[in-house]
């Protein structure tokens, strides 16, 4: 109930019953095996080459990425080559979009005048398919990686931006008034009042953006360069290698799930107050 006060205890609690907490974590995943089995049955009975059964997909994934030496966590050289740079681009793009989106969003949320000026541009930008922009980022930025980063930022910034604007506009007016009365500087108002109050909504945007970044990464890799998981996917598609293609999809899904889980851990820490304040007894 009081995260800070009893913050120390759950840790020891978990440490005391590691088995139980693992079991509980697995218990939450019960739907996964169920889905896998259903998927296996459905694809086997349909017997369509485009929809290979998950067992075939997993076997293929193992072959491509996970049959490496134990020293590399079983990852093959190919996996390291595929994922390393891709993940770096992903995080780079997502972080840049987060910083830009939150800053611009707060500026717009605080000033309705600025909002009036920028609204049409933002809406215009939002409606432009990122793939169509890749060539122009390439034309402008020339090099591969900046152009790919630009593509990711451009694609994922919108939910962050819009949610931030919404969160900023929704800050309880009495909180703002309190801050103004006590003479908070603009920076303090931002850091101590607007950001925390808007944080729950910003986090919703960040979470949306994270998986969107994965999608944009694929698009950027498809349209902009060679290597990476997007390139794999495209190559498999072009060669009619359906298990490989599905392997890429599953890999993306797994990455997305892992990223999201990590993100939720972060969110739980940052928004501890929110969970407390918003719980119904």
């Amino acid at each position, binding site marked *: 109930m009081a995260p800070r006060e009893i913050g120390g205890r759950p840790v020891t609690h978990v440490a005391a019953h590691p088995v139980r907490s693992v079991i509980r974590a697995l218990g939450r995943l019960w739907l996964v095996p169920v889905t896998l089995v259903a998927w296996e049955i459905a694809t086997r009975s349909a017997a*369509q080459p485009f929809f290979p059964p998950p067992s075939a997909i997993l076997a293929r994934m193992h072959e491509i990425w996970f049959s490496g030496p134990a020293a590399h966590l079983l990852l093959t050289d190919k996996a390291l080559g595929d994922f390393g740079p891709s993940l770096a681009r992903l995080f780079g793009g997502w972080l840049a979009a987060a910083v830009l989106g939150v800053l611009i969003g707060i500026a717009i949320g605080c000033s309705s005048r600025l909002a009036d000026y920028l*609204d049409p*541009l933002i809406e215009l930008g939002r*409606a432009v398919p990122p793939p169509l922009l890749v060539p122009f980022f390439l034309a402008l930025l020339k090099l591969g990686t900046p152009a790919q980063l630009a593509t990711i930022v451009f694609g994922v910034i919108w939910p962050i931006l819009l*949610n931030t604007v919404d969160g900023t506009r929704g800050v309880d007016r009495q909180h703002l008034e309190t801050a103004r009365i006590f003479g908070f500087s603009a920076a303090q108002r931002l850091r101590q009042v607007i950001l925390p109050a808007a944080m729950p909504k910003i986090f919703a945007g960040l979470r949306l953006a994270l998986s969107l970044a994965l999608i944009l990464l694929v698009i950027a890799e498809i349209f902009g360069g060679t290597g990476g998981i997007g390139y794999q996917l495209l190559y498999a598609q072009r060669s009619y290698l359906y298990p490989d293609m599905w392997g890429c999809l599953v890999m993306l899904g797994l*990455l*997305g799930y892992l990223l*999201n889980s990590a993100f939720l851990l972060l969110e739980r820490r940052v928004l501890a107050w929110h969970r407390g304040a918003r719980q119904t007894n």
Partner: protein
Amino acid sequence: MNHVRVLRGVAGAAGFAAAVEAVGLSGLVDERFLPRMSTILVSAAGLIVDPEFLGDAVATLAAWALGLLLTVAVAVPAGLVLGALPAVERAVRPLIEFLRPIPSVAIIPLAILLFSDNLHLKLAVIAYASSWPVLINAIYGLKDVDPLAKETLHGFGFGPLAVLARVALPSAAPFIATGVRVASGIAIILTVSAELMAGGSEGIGIFITEAASGNRIDLMLAATLWAGLFGVLSNAVLVAAERRLFRWHHARSEAAR
């Protein structure tokens, strides 16, 4: 009031166009690859009277509108269920998080195999990609409902469903609406992408494919600009609707500024 807002919007857009034109004039980018803003605007103006393009635009807009409706019809109830029942949300979360990052470029080829009707295909792809913001915002919106407001109605003996419908939903609605606005942007992108990737007989994406065949980058950009303008218009409509529906929300927070 409203006039001022429109004027400011136009000023902002004009400023942007002028800036891009200036970059074009400066020779920083090769005009072959990025035509000048004025060229694009002229081409875009020409498209208004091009019956072929108008037909394409109508097809795209229709698919977009239907797709957005479908999205709302699917994602809002789903979001309410997931937001209201944490146990369900926990169970389904791995699947959702697994599906979310799968890109449309990979989905569209599979959807082509599953749908023999172009419109159905577009709708399915739109709903798939644009449901997420609505869903996530609904879940977060529901978590953000003031517990005292819920307790109030509970206290009067209303059941969980009534509390969901009468307190949680209205109080989360503005945030869900933001999700819908994010979704509408994604939906228009997905409509055009589906047309680009899966083809068809009409649509802005088809127009762009054809323009590409003749290296008419100006026409490609002009059509893209129109897609963007449709996005602006649809957003304006949604914002106006939000302002009407959620007057309480805006009035409450705007008074402080």
